[in-house]
């Protein structure tokens, strides 16, 4: 097995191919460059990225690349599937909560004793751009143009990572069985070369060195959404990066982290975020109503709640 580790999209990435063939190794070596290309299209932290340019031109139809169009389409699908709980138009709300720079920079500020500033109290919900997001966000797939509501801006962070994991696994999988880990959002192209599933650990937010479970993935993806890591203090209150569009503020939830298995990493990422925003009771009901999903919830009080189908996917002695 060959692996490559690199940093992209503000996260640690890993890609693996289960082959010793030189062609598989050569393709694997290209993976960091793919992510760099995608990040230049999709990052909100790069002023010269395509997404930043689109965000500066809300209210007007902007021609967009096929990559940006595809990821926006995935984000719109996630919004439909989550009944509006996963929304890409949350950038104003995220920045208002203090997530106005890359998380590495926020962590550096915290180490220096400086808290992110944000303008949390200064924005109304409408100004955050998510009061009625369906009204004017428009992607014209034929002309490949994107129109944002006036004043609204896109954040594609989570969706972009899931999409990138899927896309990279698909590309690598053309030469050999592959797994791609995009900062915790994981996609596999199919079983390993010996026909066995890929073993993937599930991190325990209370004890990262002792995984909660060991998943066996034949295909699809798994993703974890949590407020255990990307969080910070603002005006003395803890904030995190998962925005509830209903309040336009970081979600108030009893779920600390949730891992979801799905037919793709993109779907898993959106489903995990949905469950976290819904909270444990409604989140488990939502998962159990969808046979293509399985999840494991870790609550703030350290309870661990599996969904109905979770045990079908884990290694058991």
């Amino acid at each position: 097995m060959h692996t490559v580790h690199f940093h992209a999209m503000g996260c640690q990435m890993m890609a693996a191919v289960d082959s010793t063939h030189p062609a598989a190794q050569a393709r694997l070596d290209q993976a960091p460059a793919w992510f760099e290309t995608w990040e230049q299209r999709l990052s909100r932290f790069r002023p010269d990225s395509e997404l930043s340019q689109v965000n500066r031109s809300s209210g007007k139809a902007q021609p967009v690349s096929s990559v940006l169009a595809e990821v926006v389409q995935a984000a719109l699908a996630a919004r439909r599937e989550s009944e509006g709980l996963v929304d890409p138009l949350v950038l104003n709300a995220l920045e208002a909560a203090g997530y106005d720079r890359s998380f590495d920079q926020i962590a550096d500020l915290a180490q220096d004793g400086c808290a992110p500033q944000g303008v949390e109290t200064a924005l109304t919900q409408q100004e955050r751009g998510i009061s009625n997001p369906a009204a004017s966000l428009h992607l014209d797939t034929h002309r490949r143009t994107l129109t944002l509501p006036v004043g609204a801006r896109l954040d594609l962070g989570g969706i972009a990572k899931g999409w990138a994991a899927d896309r990279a696994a698909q590309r690598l999988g053309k030469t050999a069985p592959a797994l791609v880990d995009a900062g915790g959002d994981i996609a596999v192209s199919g079983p390993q070369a010996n026909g066995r599933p890929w073993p993937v650990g599930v991190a325990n937010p209370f004890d990262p060195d002792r995984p909660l479970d060991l998943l066996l993935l034949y295909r699809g993806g798994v993703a974890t959404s949590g407020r255990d890591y990307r969080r910070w203090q603002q005006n003395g209150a803890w904030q995190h990066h998962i925005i509830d569009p209903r309040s336009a503020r970081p979600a108030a939830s009893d779920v600390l982290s949730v891992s979801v298995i799905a037919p793709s990493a993109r779907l898993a990422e959106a489903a995990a975020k949905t469950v976290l925003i819904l909270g444990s009771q409604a989140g488990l009901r939502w998962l159990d109503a969808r046979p293509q999903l399985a999840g494991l919830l870790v609550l703030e009080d350290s309870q661990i709640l599996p969904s109905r189908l979770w045990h079908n996917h884990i290694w058991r002695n």
Partner: protein
Amino acid sequence: MTTITKAKIMTKQRPENGAPGLRLLITTTSIVATLGGWALLTYNQSGASSAASQADPLVQMMDLAPIPTLIAPPGQAAQAFAPSQVDQAAPSFNQPAAPRLRSVPVPVTTTRSSR
């Protein structure tokens, strides 16, 4: 005299039946025909033997691999049933192989919240 004459007459008649020119012609024709036939046969065998061996099933049979014998060549027999290979494939009594499904797989990676 008569006898002599008869004899002379008979002697004269035999050379008429086996004339030296005719003998020479027959002998020469036989030799030429024999030599020519050999030459033609030799030419046909050397020039057209490859084509004939492909087209003619009888010739093809000549090209078939030797009929297998019950005794394999010594090198092959040693390779196919090398005791060392059989021993390597089978678990030894001192170290029984644990069933793979019961062994804990080593995770390739771990899912966690974005970092």
